[in-house]
């Protein structure tokens, strides 16, 4: 589910803006760090969970405005260089502000401990994350499918010229899309913190996976990325049971095959 959140966020960015966002993993980490700091400041998990992603969104707007906007017409190489540079800056910034030593964040008391599901014990917090992520994914889906903004965003992926011809400010669309992608990364990071703990490099693994999800779904295929996110998660845990070392290799293998055979992604129609 978290993969789906990451995937859909990155998918919006790659789809609408057509840039490879290498800073996505760092923004994910930033979401987690914001969460912990906000909890320390406010003493309230839920409020922090709400505010942390918004903070990441604000950073996203700054990045889009100051860095990415001048680059829409530049090649992918410069976009890559910029977003990678930004990810270095964010990661090192985290180290400077919060120190390189990892941190821990417990779930709020009511979500601690496990639930006996009969076949196995499962942590309450994970169940919460699944439910929350499912709701968010559903929310994202409804937003994209049922609202005007969502429609504009989808149109932006299909045909940018069309959108600007309709008199919609394409720059605002881009900013909004980038910010939304960042917020989703921030939520994923914040939700992950109590499960995996925090360290400045927590986003690196996630970045790779997010790209796999995007590739599997097909560039800019938002609904596909939800399904692909779920698939990657399930596939990874299944492989981990049989052949743990290969769990990461397998998803990249699948990504390679999909890119070669069905470049439009598993669910792409184009």
């Amino acid at each position: 589910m978290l993969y789906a959140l990451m995937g859909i966020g990155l998918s919006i960015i790659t789809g609408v803006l057509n840039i490879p966002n290498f800073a996505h993993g760092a923004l994910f980490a930033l979401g987690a760090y914001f969460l912990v700091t906000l909890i320390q400041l406010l003493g309230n998990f839920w409020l922090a969970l709400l505010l942390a992603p918004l903070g990441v969104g604000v950073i996203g707007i700054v990045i889009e405005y100051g860095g990415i906007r001048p680059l829409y017409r530049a090649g992918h190489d410069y976009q890559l260089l910029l977003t990678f540079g930004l990810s270095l800056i964010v990661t090192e910034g985290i180290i400077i502000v919060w120190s390189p030593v990892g941190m821990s964040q417990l779930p709020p008391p009511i979500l601690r401990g496990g639930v006996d599901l009969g076949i196995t014990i499962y942590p309450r917090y994970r169940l919460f994350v699944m439910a929350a992520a499912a709701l968010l994914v559903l929310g994202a889906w409804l937003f994209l499918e049922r609202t005007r903004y969502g429609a504009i965003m989808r149109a932006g992926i299909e045909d940018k010229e069309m959108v600007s011809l309709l008199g919609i400010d394409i720059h605002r669309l881009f900013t909004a899309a980038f910010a939304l992608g960042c917020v989703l990364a921030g939520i994923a990071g914040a939700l992950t913190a109590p499960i995996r703990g925090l360290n400045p490099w927590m986003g690196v693994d996630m970045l790779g996976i997010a790209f796999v999800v995007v590739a599997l779904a097909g560039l800019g295929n938002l609904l596909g990325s939800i399904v692909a996110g779920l698939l990657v998660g399930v596939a990874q845990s299944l492989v981990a049971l049989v052949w743990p070392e290969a769990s990461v290799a397998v998803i990249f293998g699948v990504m390679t095959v999909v890119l070669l055979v069905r470049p439009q992604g598993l669910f792409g129609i184009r």
Partner: protein
Amino acid sequence: MSGLSRRDVVKLGSAAAAFGIGFPTVLRAQPKEVVMLGLWSFTGAFSDVGPVLDRGMKLALEERGMKVQSKTIKYITRDDETKAGSATRRAEEAVDSDGAKFIIGPWSSGVALAVSEVAKRKKVFHYFSGGTEDISGARCHRYSFQWAASPYTAAKTVVDTFMQANPKAKRWHLLVADYAFGWSVEKYIKEVGKGHGIEFVGADRHPLGEREFSNYVTKAAGNKPDVVAMINFGLDAVTGAREIFNFGLTPKVPLILTWSSGVEELVQLNPEIRENLWVGSNFYYTADTPIAREFVKSYQAKFGNPPGYAPAAAYGMTRMTLAAMDKAKSTEVADVVKALEGLELDDLVGRMRVDAKTHQTLRPYFFMRCKKKDAMKGPMDFADIIATGSTPLPAEYAACKDIGSL
């Protein structure tokens, strides 16, 4: 093309050459100087420990006024990036260009093994502390030494002590990091466990750097063990312990961190997670030796918190190296190597002796039990040492058959 004429490129080239002058020029070590290199991770996976390792080594050198055998010690550091490639190239560069002759570190086993090769090739002294058995085992040679206890010593201390405290806990589930260090500790835990009649209901291996432990924990829970023992290190251990707690296994089932860095890992876990946590380590700051007490006092005075295994190891290795120089009355690599072989003294963690045949430092290993939240006297008061063991690796297990020549 970019509209650049050939002449521009020429000028650019000369500018680049001129720029090079700004680079620190080749400084050959003065003969009166002993250059010691601390090879630590300031970036990469272990960058959280780099700075504290640096502190430990510096502390040991400053105690001696940066002097040994009436020579000045020049302490330099390099960032190994927690990568074998970067570590070897920076070590090599420091040896070639700065005249470094004594390398302490790095922290990561894999990286250290690569550096050990550099030491062998360049004939420089190398002291390392960590989980791999290879430096004092299959890949031993005359120039590299191991400070951490043998995995056998660790396994023996942990299993014996734990079984003494919990004689009924016979169903063990192991979770092992899938590389040389994990395998060797696992081997010895099983070996020692046999003597106690322990049944190993499961032993799962996870890749190094694993961050998703839910599958392993689900499996562990399914086995209904009396004890879960993890054989992993650093973030892997922290992430694993957290997940085991999240699944509700701890505190009902005791969890053993077999080979932990102690403070550095414990501080990353909330007190709730530490309940019923048992920890084996090469150092804990309540170790009751005169040198440890002094070290902890000055470290705490300087940095505000007690030292963990990492700074202690850097401190301890540096002390051992200096002791060997004193014994040899020389700072030549070959003399220091010979002096350290067989050196025996009371140092940081107690009685220490360097086995000349394997270059393993024979020394005590600590086993702690974490305190409950309300029993903690301060935020860093994590645990009590409940045992110190120092059974050395039986000779028949020693993988170092021939330490070789200088």
